[in-house]
Structures are given as C-alpha cells and as structure tokens.
C-alpha cells in the first residue's frame, strides 16, 4: 500500500523502547523546559501532596545540574498537617528554590475572602491563589493535576489558557498538537501548566518507588483518631471536630490525597510501605477523589465549577 519504507523498521522490535514511566517522565520534563524557555515568570504550585512532590522531582530533573529556575508557591489554608509543612520546608531548602507562601488566614484577616460558616476553606483558596499569582506577576503556574482524577480534568489541556481573571473556558481551549505547546499570552493572562496530565495514581506511586521519593508519613498506614461523616473518615483535629452523634475511634488509616486538613479524609489501610500502597492502589475500586475529598462531592460538576472560577 505504501511505497516508502518505514524508517525504523530495520531495527528489531523491542529495542529502543521506553517504559511507560520513562515515557511519562520524558514528556513531563519536556513540558517544564518548554515553559521555562517560553514564559517569563513561571511558578510551581506546591501543596505537599504526592503529585506536587513528584512534580518537584521532575522539575529538578529537567534543569539539572542547574537549580530549578522558578519559585515554588504554597497556598496555605492554615489547616495543615504538620508533617506536610515540615516536609515542604526541608525539600525547598534541599533544592535551593525560593518558597512563596500565600496564606488563607491572612487573606481572611485582610478581608480579601470571608471564612464560610461551615469552616471549610477550599472555595476561598481560589481568590488567594489568584491574588498571589497577580502579586508575583506570574505568567505560568505548574499544577500537579492529572486527567484521570476527574472528568473536567480529562478535557483540559497540558497548557491551560486562563483569562485575566484566571478563569478556564472549556469551550474555548487551544488545540494541542504533537508536543507543540502554545504559551502565548497577553498582559494579565496566564497559563496553568499540568506536566502530570497523562499520569495515573498508580503511575505516581510506581514512580515514587522507582525514584525512592520520600513522602510525608501520613501517606502510609498509621493509627489515628477518626470519626465517620458522609461515609468518609475524618481525622479528629483542631480544624475538624466531630459533631454531635459522630463517634471518635482509633483506626489504621492512610491518606490517598493530602489537601486541606478539614476536608481531606483518610482511608482504612494497612499499607505502610510503598510496595503495599502500590498493591492497594492496583486493586482499589474507588477513585482517590471520590474516596477522600469532601470538596468534590458537593455536586457532579464540582471540579468543573471550581476550575471555571480559577482553581487549578
């Protein structure tokens, strides 16, 4: 059917083949370098969660032996797991990168946002993030979102254009072809960049194991005082108290995602090593957001709505 010989066909099958993790790693490194080359002031959004930790590792690889050529931004809701903050500070010092903290409590204090009566801070993170991006004059922000997390994410580009209000318009996305990314913007506009777009939860864990990446201890099974709410297990801590009728008990749990301590639930687990977690993730039947994130349960389109407002 074709007259042209296929150029690679001289080599035996099986050679010059990259594993899935190597392919994903190469793709992510390409994205980091592209942004650093084309956009003036990038910043990496770091939450202390496993995805942003992997993202930071990939950024380190992309520019080695030079330092990561952009700062790291943490939107601090004030509802933190102490292990996560300690991890953040240690890692930032190791890499020699600048850390910018955007504080939600300070934003409440200054009147930029109002604390909702239910005590949660997920929704009010967005204006704080947008404010920090504007103040830092950041033109690109790397986020650790993956397309397998949610159906709104499944349709988002690697380079996600945001208007001067930081909003995502799903109907007006730039076509993304080959590995040619269009990062052009006008003043005030920005790009959210998702280097982990094609990774799944299992890929992340396999990479954590392969690279020997340290994660905050709460990702592994431990005993914790918890209570049940809406079918999920919440830690009994200063940000999240049991209501009347919610009984506190000790359970062996771990966290699959790490976000705001008032909203992130734990899952029952005995997986106390990376191998055990990989086994668990391999056979788990519930999505990580479905299992652990109160914020995504509000409605079927919760993520879509938040992204439109400027959430990463």
């Amino acid at each position, binding site marked *: *059917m*074709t007259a042209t010989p*296929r*150029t*690679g066909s*001289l*080599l035996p*099958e*099986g050679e*010059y*083949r*990259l594993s*899935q*993790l190597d392919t994903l790693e*190469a793709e992510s*490194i390409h994205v980091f*370098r*592209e942004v*650093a*080359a084309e956009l003036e002031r990038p910043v990496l959004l770091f939450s202390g969660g496993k995805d942003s930790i992997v993202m930071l590792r990939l950024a*380190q*690889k*992309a*520019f*080695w*032996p*030079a*330092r990561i050529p952009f700062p790291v931004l943490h939107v601090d809701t004030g509802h933190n797991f102490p292990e996560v903050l300690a991890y953040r500070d240690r890692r930032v010092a190791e890499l020699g990168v600048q850390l910018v903290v955007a504080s939600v409590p300070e934003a409440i204090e200054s009147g930029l946002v109002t604390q909702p009566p239910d005590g949660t801070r997920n929704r009010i993170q967005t204006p704080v993030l947008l404010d920090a991006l504007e103040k830092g004059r950041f033109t690109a922000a790397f986020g650790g979102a993956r*397309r397998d997390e949610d159906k709104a994410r*499944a*349709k988002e580009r690697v380079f996600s254009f945001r208007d001067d209000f930081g909003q995502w318009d*799903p*109907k007006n996305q*730039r*076509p*993304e*072809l*080959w*590995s*040619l990314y*269009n990062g*052009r*913007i006008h003043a005030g506009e920005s790009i959210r960049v998702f280097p982990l*777009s*094609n990774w*799944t939860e*299992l*890929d992340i864990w396999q990479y954590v*194991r*392969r690279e020997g990446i340290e994660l905050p201890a709460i990702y592994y099974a431990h005993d914790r005082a918890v209570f049940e709410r809406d079918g999920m297990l919440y830690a009994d801590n200063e940000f999240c108290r049991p209501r009347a009728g919610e009984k506190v008990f000790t359970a062996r749990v771990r966290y699959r995602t790490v976000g705001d301590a008032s909203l992130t639930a734990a899952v029952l687990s005995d997986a106390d090593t990376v191998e055990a977690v990989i*086994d668990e993730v*391999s*056979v788990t*039947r*519930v*999505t990580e957001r*479905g*299992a652990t994130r109160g914020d995504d349960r509000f409605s*079927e389109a919760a993520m879509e*709505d938040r992204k439109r407002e400027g959430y990463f």
Partner: protein
Amino acid sequence: MGVPTVFPAGLPTGPVQRTDMLRFATAGSVDDGKSTLIGRLLYDSKAIFSDQLEAVEKASAAKGDDYVNLALLTDGLRAEREQGITIDVAYRYFATPRRKFVIADTPGHIQYTRNMVTGASTADLAIVLVDARKGLVEQSRRHAFIATLLRVPHLVLAVNKMDLVGYSQDVFDAISDEFTRFAAKLDITDLTVVPISALHGDGIVSRSPNMPWHEGPSLLHHLERVHVSSDRNLIDVRFPVQYVIRPQSVDHPDYRGYAGTVASGILRAGDPVMVLPSGRTSRVAAIETIDGPVVEAFPPMAVTVRLTDDVDISRGDMICRPGNAPEPRQDLDAMVCWMADKPLQRGQKLAIKHTTRTARVMIKELHYRLDVNTLHRDESAVELGLNDVGRVTLRTTQPLFADPYRRNRATGGFILIDESTNATVAAGMVLDPSHRVQPPFTEYAI
C-alpha cells in the same frame, strides 16, 4: 449491563513491569457506540472505579435504561450536557499487564475535524468505528483519511453492533472488503479489521464464542501487541535544542548543556554532529541526565547534550549529523488543517511553531482545498474555513529545519498561531518537495 466480561490476567501488581505505552485515538459518533466501546475497555480493564460506576448506574436508571449505560462513563462536562454537544478531545487511561493505554477520545461529527486532527497527532493507532447495520458511511471514510493525513501508523476498523446483525460473517466480510478496497487508495501502512459488540463485550477482551468464524485477534489483544517501537524514525538524528542549561554555580562554573527531547534518530556519545543553522560541526562529549550519563538517546527521551567544542547554540537550533541534516528552508509546501472561525487566506501573516523554533510566516499560495470526504481538490478555493484541509505554500521569516511529515512526524509537523489573538489556528504537515507535481492523495469517489 449486557454480558459482563472478565479481564483475564489481572492488574499490574507487584514489581514495576517494563510495560510501554500506546496512545490511540477513537473516532466515531455516539451512534456508532464509541462511548460504549471506551466504557467497555475501561470497565473490562478495571479502570473504572465503583464510585464512577455507581454514578453511571444511577444516571442510567434515571434515564430509564434497563442496562448500565457505559456510554455515560465518558460523558463530559456540564457545559456539554446542558447544550447536548461534545466539546473536545478527552483523554482516558487504562492499563493491562502488557501496556498502559492513553485514549484520545474525539467526537466524530463533521465540524470536529480539528479535534480528530488533534487526537490523531500523537496517536500510534486509530480506531475507526462503524455500525454493522449501516456499514461504511461518509464519516468512516473521513476518519480513516484524517488518520492517514496525520500518519497514524496503525489503523483499526472496528465493526460494532455485531449482535444486531446476528453476528453474521457475511455482513462483516462485506464491510471489511469494502473498507480494504477504500484503504488501498489511502496510504495506510497497517490495517486490522475486528468484529465487536461493545455493548455485550464480544470481541473486546477475547475472541467471541458468538463469532467463531473470526480468526483474527480480539480488539484488546491487538492493542496490547501491535508493534509500535518500529514506527519511530530511528535513522535521522534530530535534536531540537529546547533550553540551554548553564548553572554558573560553584560546582559547575563552566557547564553548558543543551537540553531537549530527541525528535528522531539515535544520538550516541562520541558522535560527530552538525548544528543548524550555523553548520558548525562538533562531537557529542556526553549525554547526561540527573540519573547519570546515557550511552544512547532515542525518541522521546529528554536529555542534556554536551559538545566537545564551544559552539554558540541557542533554543531553536537543531543538532543533527553532518551527513544527514534537513535542508534549511524558508519556502515550505504543507497540508494544513484550519482550526479558526476566521478563514485562512492568501497573504495572511501568522506565527509558526516548528520543533522548538518560532518564526513568522506568510501564506504565499493556497493551492487547493481538499474535500475530506471525496479527496476532491478544489483548486478554485480562495480560503480555508474552520475544519477545512488544504495545501499551501508558506514563506517563513527565518529558515526552518523541517523534514517531510511522512518521513518524520516530529520534525514535519507545525502549528500556526494568530499573532493578535494568540489562538492556535492551524495544524500543518510539511510535504516532500518532490511532491510538487504529484499530489500526495488520490481522489476517489464514494
């Protein structure tokens, strides 16, 4: 749900396996059962979680379906549900012990050529779905053509809804023969035809007892085993410099490395190289990563190359071999797919992004608009509208180091950007200069 099938070999557990990755694009409309097929692949490979399934069960019950409508699994955004449209390419993921799969799920209606082009641009394989009751329709031919235009190396024709034609071999053979005859007019390197019922799971994971006459593989068997590493161009060394790494630190005061992704060919330490556009020659001193030096770098590895000589190199330059380098050209013939509402016209000025190089470009000539259904070339066309495909000649402000797209997808593809709106307005594929007289496609009649 119809007949639930069971994924036979379990999930990838235990030690990290040397699985590779296959990207495939699916094209077809809801009517062809595309969403059901994707839902089926995700469901049978256990990539669907119980909370997602529960949501779908509820939605199916609410719609009054007496089976679990797997199509709802890939239902997208609220904006789409409210307007009853499918916006865009969605990406889905599943894995078997052999491979990780990335699906670019593209809507198949005529106005969505741009989405299919986008999904096909990175695909190793494309699945064109047809309804066994209807056989080939205009859309099936269009999908196959676009996959060919984008040089997707492997094409699968999935004849779906075999249950509704009594699993008839005659029906399947007729469709298969017709498509094979049609495909001979395109430039398809590898074609596989499979009979399936996405709804009931026939022919997806394993061969169906309902179709004992089919001797070929099941769909998943084919997806897991199709050879893709030989699709990459491993002959022509092309390393577009993406970023220059200069730590200027105490530990690395004089380090200068050229970071990038290998577009094609195999680069080895010690190799003589030539750098474009300067034409200067040098040797590869080392190929480095944070994890240590690399003996051979091949696509799509992301590495840092150091040369033995102090050559002035910046982003947009290309490292290749002295005896095998693309000719720097400012006049390019290309097929373009136009993706903007405002039409392409002769004389228009745009930005072009090709590998890591950005330049400005003028549309010197519009030769013809190609009807993607008949491949008829309309030479009287004066513009290309949204979703039109046509052949143009471009004049660039600085030389590009392009190869014909049919030889090299990574160095033959480009995008065009509107400099006032910053929108990506076209995908382009560089043609072989020797095609100036002979067009790359044969017209056919339906």
